């Protein structure tokens, strides 16, 4: 179509791997987003003290054959640390694993391990995968808390991508539905005592239910802008002494503060 453009992935890959201090050419990248893998929990800010992986959950890349959560990449050793507060997602007799692929590459296999044994293998026959990939894996012979190792074996390089996904099998008998309706029982998993090396950029996600509470327009009016707040249209905040009115409902994040860069969200009053 109009898009004849290709991305200089080799260039970008070098940048990404320089972040990770990884030595391999990073030609493909990906991770399991749901049920949330350990790197997904790091990137989501749900687990603190994750080190570098939180900025590039897609980069746990190492030679094929590892059985470790980090694939043996020392820079991502936090992924192997079972004492971090990883949330185990309740699943039924099976679970559907969804992948985020930031760069797609020819794929040999996708393999899922429990207790060191391969329990499911999906052979892609060296094809380029679709943009989003999901696999439903039978877990009926297990129960209770398990760590599933999900491995993406690349077809034309010696590399693979490693993910550990903590699940609680038979936790609710969800029957392997893709969207578990389980309430987030583990509320803020952030350990309160520890001081994260990186400043907590996210305010604790204020109750998303606030969108339905009509009275919440009052407290939002004239308050200082803050990240992590669900702002609604016509909410008024102040920022650097100036008042702004919200023009588009959104959950506030860093760099979406009212300014000339974000006039689409905030109208100066």
């Amino acid at each position: 179509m109009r898009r004849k453009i290709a991305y200089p992935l080799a260039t970008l890959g070098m940048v990404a791997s320089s972040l990770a201090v990884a030595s391999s050419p990073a030609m493909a990248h990906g991770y399991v987003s749901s049920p949330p893998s350990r790197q997904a929990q790091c990137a989501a800010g749900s687990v603190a003290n994750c080190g570098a992986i939180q900025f590039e959950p897609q980069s746990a890349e190492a030679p094929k054959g590892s059985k470790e959560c980090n694939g043996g990449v020392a820079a991502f050793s936090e992924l192997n640390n079972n004492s971090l507060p990883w949330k185990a997602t309740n699943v039924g007799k099976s679970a559907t694993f969804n992948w985020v692929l930031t760069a797609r590459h020819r794929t040999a296999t996708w393999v899922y391990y429990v207790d060191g044994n391969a329990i499911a293998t999906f052979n892609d026959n060296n094809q380029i995968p679709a943009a989003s990939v999901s696999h439903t894996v039978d877990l009926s012979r297990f129960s209770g808390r398990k760590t599933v190792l999900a491995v993406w074996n690349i077809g034309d390089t010696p590399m693979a991508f490693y993910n550990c996904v903590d699940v609680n099998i038979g936790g609710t008998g969800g029957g392997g539905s893709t969207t578990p309706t389980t309430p987030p029982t583990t509320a803020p998993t952030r350990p309160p005592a520890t001081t994260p090396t990186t400043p907590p950029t996210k305010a604790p996600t204020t109750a998303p239910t606030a969108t339905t509470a009509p009275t919440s327009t009052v407290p939002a009016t004239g308050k200082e802008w803050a990240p992590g707040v669900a702002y609604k249209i016509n909410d008024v905040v102040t920022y650097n002494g100036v008042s702004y009115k919200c023009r588009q409902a959104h959950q506030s994040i860093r760099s979406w503060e009212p300014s000339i860069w974000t006039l689409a969200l905030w109208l100066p009053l």
Partner: protein
Amino acid sequence: MKRRHVAALIVAAAPMLLGACGTARDDAPPPPAAVQTQNVKNVSEITAGSTFNDTDVMFLQMLIDNLEQGQEMAQTAAKRATRPEVADLAKAVQVTQADEIKLMKSWLAEWDKPAELDERVSLHADHGGMPSTGDKEIASLKTVKKAQFETAFLNLFLAHQHNAVEFAQLELDKGGNELAKSFAERVKQSRTDQVQQMLKLLAG
């Protein structure tokens, strides 16, 4: 710091405050605070200044392409998402990125560079895999079953925003224009935080 200048710009209507990082146009002062929406909404009044290198140009060209694809994805999500949180995120992304596209195109025009990627850049493509989001995948969001839409959209858009972070990091490492780099930092932050939101939305 720079951000504070920009905020002050609105207050004081003093375009020269941007002089530290770029050249503000004399003939395009920011409008007074209380005027019409359309008049206020003009990020292209932020000028980048004449110092730039190849990475700055490549960054803007790649990100414009990324954002134009993103507009299509976000538009679809605004219509098809089931949860209001997902629809709101898509709409907020849509409006902020529309301004970013305007801003970047005006900088490239200022530098007399095309807004599309040139051949030289695309030569690298044969070393790597496919970009995460092609036209086919974006189009598939319109046909995927409603029940699977949010999972499909969030996974695809996560990859897309991760890509934008990679572009921004490239600019931060190798860019030459200070305002473009400060913009890259904003891109890195906003997409990183959007990733957080989307991962939480995926986790249900």
